[in-house]
């Protein structure tokens, strides 16, 4: 598929530091599909669960022709109390663009009914940025020449203290996707440390098997987020060229394995801009919809990241997903899935986050660094010589306190914790 690689070439950056053999391998992966493994085939050790959700989602997305929807379909969808899958498809379609304000008003009302005027604030903490995958758009990818770091337990403790001191009570712990450099036991120990300082802990790490999710839950994790990046398996194949992450179906079933392991909640997302965003938005929402039907107790939430520039590649951008399109997707999510949490990250601008929090977002991050071990630097200005580099460039760099105040000024009630570990 030469045309796809041409489209992808914006992502390809060669480091001068790579040894010739590695560079050659990288180029082969980029240009020769036959050098890449079958992305639909599980690797040894990957658990296979019995689930039909993948097929349901893929089938629905395959049939989705968003240009077939009309203004009438959109008006119909907006006039209904309960939004069906068909209504949702109409709300995601180009025909709904002129109805953005009406969608926002409906979304605002539904959000108020389910969540009141609250907004949750959390912070993500990256504890390691080693990665064994080559995902072409990601700053952590194994061919990108960045400073790598994995925090020691002492450093983790210190980071937790620095963050906890701000008043934050919920934390999301992240790693690059490397079983070798950040194994499950390491993450488990890190979670136990975090548990001393925070009320609610989520993780965003490489997908693992049910027994490993169970172990992490016992360590204190209650929330597992896995981004599927794109639900278009063919496109996925051309972006995730090497490593465990390349296996699309294993990644898809992560949330289900996590819920089976006793996790309380799960987060979902496509990285909007990688592929056709309307189809990816449909797939993400249907993923949530079907898991809600099978696991009605689970607290499910959606994120909506768009592509951002990374170190060594400033050219990466969200392509055709402008703020209006993103807003349309989020309003449609809210109307279709009134109960789902919606997280809007610091990839988005201050204005966008302030505005969207009043319409449909329920959770925002603050005090964010996507680098490794640099919270002290960020919070106090003191330099950390050996901090690890960041995953992507953030847009909204507000501290916890200023986010809190801004949300309150906007008429929202910031909530730091709504949680009892049971």
């Amino acid at each position, binding site marked *: 598929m030469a045309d796809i690689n041409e489209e992808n070439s914006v992502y390809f950056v060669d480091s001068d530091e790579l040894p010739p053999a590695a560079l050659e391998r990288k180029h082969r992966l980029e240009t020769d599909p036959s050098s890449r493994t079958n992305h639909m085939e599980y690797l040894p050790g990957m658990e296979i669960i019995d689930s039909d959700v993948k097929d349901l989602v893929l089938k629905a997305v395959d049939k989705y022709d968003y240009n077939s929807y009309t203004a009438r379909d959109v008006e119909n969808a907006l006039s209904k109390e309960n939004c069906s899958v068909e209504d949702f498809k109409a709300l995601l379609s180009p025909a709904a663009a002129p109805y953005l304000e009406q969608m926002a008003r409906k979304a605002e009302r539904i959000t*108020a*009914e*389910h*969540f*009141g*005027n*609250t907004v949750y604030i959390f912070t993500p903490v990256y504890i390691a940025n080693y990665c064994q995958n080559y995902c072409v758009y990601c700053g952590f990818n194994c061919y990108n020449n960045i400073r790598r770091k994995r925090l020691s337990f002492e450093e983790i403790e210190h980071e937790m203290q620095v963050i906890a001191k701000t*008043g934050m*009570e919920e934390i999301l712990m992240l790693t690059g996707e490397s079983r070798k450099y950040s194994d499950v036991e390491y993450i488990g120990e890190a979670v136990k440390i975090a548990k001393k300082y925070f*009320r609610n802990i989520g993780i965003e790490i490489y997908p693992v098997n049910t027994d490993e999710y169970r172990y992490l839950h016992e360590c204190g994790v209650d929330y597992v987020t896995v981004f599927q990046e794109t639900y278009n398996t063919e496109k996925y194949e051309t972006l995730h060229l090497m490593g465990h992450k390349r296996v699309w179906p294993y990644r898809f079933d992560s949330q289900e394995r996590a819920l089976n392991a006793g996790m309380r909640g799960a987060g979902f997302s496509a990285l909007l801009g990688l592929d056709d965003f309307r189809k990816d938005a449909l797939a993400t929402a249907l993923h949530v919809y079907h898991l*809600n039907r099978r696991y*009605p*107790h*689970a*607290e*499910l939430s959606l994120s909506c990241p768009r592509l951002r520039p990374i170190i060594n590649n400033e050219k990466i951008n969200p392509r055709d997903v402008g703020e209006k399109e993103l807003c349309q997707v989020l309003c449609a999510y809210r109307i279709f899935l*009134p*109960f789902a949490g919606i997280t809007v990250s610091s990839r988005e601008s201050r204005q966008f986050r302030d505005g969207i929090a009043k319409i449909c977002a329920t959770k925002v991050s603050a005090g964010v660094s996507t680098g490794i071990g640099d919270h002290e630097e960020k919070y106090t200005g003191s330099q950390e010589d050996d901090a690890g580099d960041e995953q992507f460039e953030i847009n909204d760099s507000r501290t916890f306190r200023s986010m809190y105040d801004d949300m*309150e000024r906007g008429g929202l*009630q910031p*909530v*730091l*914790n*709504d*949680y*009892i570990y*049971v």
Partner: protein
Amino acid sequence: MEDKLILGGHEFTSRFILGSGKYNINLIKAAVEQGGAQIITLALRRANTQQSESILDHIPEGVTLLPNTSGARNADEAVRIARLSRAMGCGDFVKVEIMHDAKYLLPDNYETVRATETLAAEGFVVLPYMYPDLNIARDLQSAGAAAVMPLAAPIGSNKGLATKDFIQILIDEIDLPVIVDAGIGRPSQACEAMEMGAAAVMANTAIATAGDVPAMAGAFRQAVEAGRTAYITGMGRVLARGGSASDPLTGFLR
């Protein structure tokens, strides 16, 4: 004679129970005052906070706390949360809320009976949130509940008395106070529930999402009082159809 609401031996003159979720905690005091509420519910998971944000600091003295077990997915979790609540100094009242349905937040009646049994035996004043089912209400009574709290409609929906006929059955058949909880969207609906004979009404979202939170709490107070007075007074008859003929068909009978 004074008209009192009695729950587990505790007496209240107000029949409006105020929720504390979904709105700015700085408004709680004013809402309690204007709503005349003597009982306020709070989610223990919201009270369980480390910092200055604790909702407990905003609840006026003399108001009875009714901590709920929201977040519990089964009886065991609800029991654990209730014990934690008592240990935190939130008192002996507990509203048992057990849900494993994230979409409509409908209560699990079966697990609720189990939790009520355990907690009542431990001396809690147990107010179970339930789906209005007569058999379950009887089981809750046997389990030692101090009242039953049937839902009018799904939480937060503001849909009003969607389960009206079934709540009426509970009012007619159960000896415990029946407190209508969840789904009440307007003062008129609260008034209607009280006219039916409900012992009290609990509301949260309707107030939390109002333009003026304390003023809406005041509106609910008036509605609840009006409905209660109407119920006690005994309402005038309402004819299902037709008028009352002045020349009755049976007038010929001697």
